């Protein structure tokens, strides 16, 4: 069934149907082999951006620290610059005043880039959904989200699971096809 993640069985993951949908686009054998190697490398060195706006950030730090140890999954080096980061974990409430800053950070990241929306606030506005004038109700209003990690705040284990889901998603991608399409798109412009 394709995507293998170390120490967790394929059937133990949820959302396998969505993953198989990506598969249907197909690809030839040579390219998928090269893609496999590339994606093996890419998915095991996802570098997150040092970005956290509230209590989810504390859980993210806990996930990065010794007990839960994010680094086992290669999502290890927190980069202080968006230029060097692969994934932005939106950990916390995004207010209307913060929204343009988040958008700019996302724009500054280099391709390929991924977004994990962590916690209730980033997913939907959470506790600030009703009767608030200042909170963005879901970060997908500003930037495209790859993985949602529910919780308020989520446990570090939940974030680890979200990261593994991102790795699976990443392993299904065709990097070559993607960059080829992009070049074509550029010429057509």
């Amino acid at each position: 069934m394709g995507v293998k993640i170390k120490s967790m069985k394929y059937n133990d993951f949820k959302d396998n149907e969505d993953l198989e949908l990506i598969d249907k686009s197909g690809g030839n054998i040579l390219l998928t082999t090269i893609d496999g190697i590339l994606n093996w490398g890419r998915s095991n060195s996802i570098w997150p951006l040092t970005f956290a706006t509230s209590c989810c950030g504390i859980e993210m730090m806990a996930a990065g620290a010794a007990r839960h140890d994010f680094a086992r999954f290669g999502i290890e080096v927190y980069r202080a610059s968006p230029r060097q980061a692969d994934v932005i974990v939106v950990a916390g409430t995004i207010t209307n005043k913060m929204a343009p800053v988040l958008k700019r950070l996302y724009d500054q990241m280099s391709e390929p880039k991924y977004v994990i929306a962590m916690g209730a606030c980033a997913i939907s506005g959470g506790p600030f959904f009703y009767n608030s004038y200042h909170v963005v109700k879901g970060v997908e209003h500003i930037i495209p989200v790859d993985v949602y990690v529910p919780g308020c705040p989520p446990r570090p284990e939940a974030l680890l699971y979200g990261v593994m889901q991102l790795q699976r998603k990443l392993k299904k991608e065709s990097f070559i096809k993607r960059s080829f399409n992009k070049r074509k798109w550029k010429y057509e412009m």
Partner: protein
Amino acid sequence: MTNENIQKKILELVPEATETANKQYPTFIIPAEKFHSLCEKIKQSEDLAFDYLFCLSGMDWGDSLGVVYHLFSTKHEHTVALKVKTADRNNPELDTICDIWKTADFLEREVFDLFGIKFRNHPDLRRIFLEENWNGHPLRKDYVDEINIVER
């Protein structure tokens, strides 16, 4: 100083003040025009010596707007809460106390930002959190924002 003594002292300084029931601190409602002079006195007096303003919050009671001040004395370690109200919702004005406690400067700016209460003689009364071109004062009970607020 015991709470009874604080009550006695404050009623001596402002006879119009009314005490309201509060479990934690002795609480008084002070008429707005007497408030500034009262603050000066209770800061300078030897036996009250309220030298520390530790909380200043804006309030919207529906019929009136106002501010609650929490004062503490580091010398005697006693606390008092003072309430000031103004019934004018369209153009609420109160006296600033940032010439007495400097910390009130930013706190009053916050109250101005979110409740629209203007503080007379404040040196720099601008919005502090929201953008300069923001319309209205969002923590007021009658604030409407049809775009951002989902009512429940």
